[in-house]
């Protein structure tokens, strides 16, 4: 980890620690989605295991978009981004630090959400539960890497809050499907999630590489 990457990351974490805006907004939104779905479907036993993976992923997705939309808001507000553009440190490191910070925020929300989820959906994991510790971070990284990149892409747009989900959701569909199917396989124990996990790994590598390579262009686009 280079000094600039660490500096960007520490800066993002310090600011979030002081404001707690991203984590709080995501947590309440995700809680609402989880509770509303549990009321709507009254999930029990096998049915709960069938839908729980999807509900968790969709709750994470919707909650993350609210935070990702604000991912670069502080940098835009007082033209901090221009000061960062004037500094010679590589732009890719700024992107990576922002994505890592968002990943941590979403992961914290997922951790806080987990007990609520287990209670509301009466879940009992039938497959290898530990694999969820692989699937959720892989899917979350796919979401935040793309979300952070496309949030940067849309910062100069007047309708950026609308633009981000319009770009992000279609591109995230393969990762979302893999995440949901892998999580459902693990919860129900009915099939092997290996294929979906491999797909998530491949997706993460491709989109993270593309984002790192293209971020400098996005940052300096007029």
């Amino acid at each position, binding site marked *: 980890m280079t*000094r*600039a990457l660490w*500096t960007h990351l520490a*800066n993002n974490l*310090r*600011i979030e620690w*002081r*404001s707690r805006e991203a984590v709080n907004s995501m947590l309440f939104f995700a809680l609402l989605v989880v509770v509303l779905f549990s009321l709507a479907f009254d999930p029990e036993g096998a049915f709960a295991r069938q839908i729980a993976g999807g509900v968790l992923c969709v709750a994470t997705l919707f909650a993350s978009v609210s935070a990702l939309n604000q991912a670069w808001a*502080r940098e835009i*507000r*007082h*033209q*901090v981004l*221009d*000061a*960062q*553009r*004037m*500094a*010679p*440190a590589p732009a890719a490191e700024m992107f990576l630090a922002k994505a890592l910070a968002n990943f941590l925020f979403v992961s914290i929300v997922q951790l806080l959400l987990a007990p609520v989820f287990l209670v509301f959906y009466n879940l009992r994991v039938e497959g290898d539960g530990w694999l969820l510790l692989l699937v959720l971070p892989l899917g979350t990284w796919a979401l935040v890497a793309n979300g952070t990149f496309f949030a940067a892409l849309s910062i100069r747009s007047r309708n950026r809050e609308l633009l981000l989900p319009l770009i992000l959701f279609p591109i995230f569909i393969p990762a979302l499907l893999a995440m949901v199917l892998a999580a459902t396989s693990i919860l129900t124990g009915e099939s092997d999630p290996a294929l979906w996990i491999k797909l998530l790994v491949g997706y993460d590598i491709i989109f993270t590489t593309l984002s790192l390579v293209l971020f400098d262009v996005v940052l*300096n686009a*007029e």
Partner: protein
Amino acid sequence: MNAQPPEAADRTLCARLDRVSRLFGAFAALRQVSVDFARGRCYVLVGENGAGKSTLLRILAGLLRPSAGAARVFGALDPQAERARIGYMSHAPMLYDELTAEENLLYFASLYPGRACLTPSEALRQVGLDPDLKRILGQYSQGMRQRASLARVLLPVPELLLLDEPFSNMDQESARQMVAMLANFRHSDRTIVLTTHQRELAAPIADWVLTLHAGRVASFEPGKAAR
């Protein structure tokens, strides 16, 4: 108008705008502007709102690309390639509201790897701010933010200083202190290009006064400090 101060050819050139135009949609913010900026001189840009002053500074900083013409800074056709040597201060503070001035400066100093930066304390003292002040920037007055912003610009010891309305939101005494500080900066053979509506404030350090009107150079006159 092709504005060439007579001394520019004799001294090492710092920056050159060669028939630079900049369009925003159908609006031409700059039209065929040609200016040479010599090292160690202070250039004061004046003109009414919308004359193109800020656009000119942003092009020199490499934050905007010319629609036509060429902008060279330290010989590089892309000023971004030389950005470590350029300090740019905008209307906005360009700092995080959630951090103290010292935290902001520590953060930005670490984004200049391999460059001998001032320490945050040194930079803050230079602009007359107390380095021990633990308030976050969001609780600063406008004038204090302006000083903190200047401290950020001074941090990497830039050779070309681009200041957009540095005296706005400042009381007369603070503005005079800033002018005195900029005079010291200029004496260390560094170049200053600043825009202002308060021409009389910048007069003591102005080697050249460049007046822009509707995106064109209307006049280029020697200032009071011309050597």
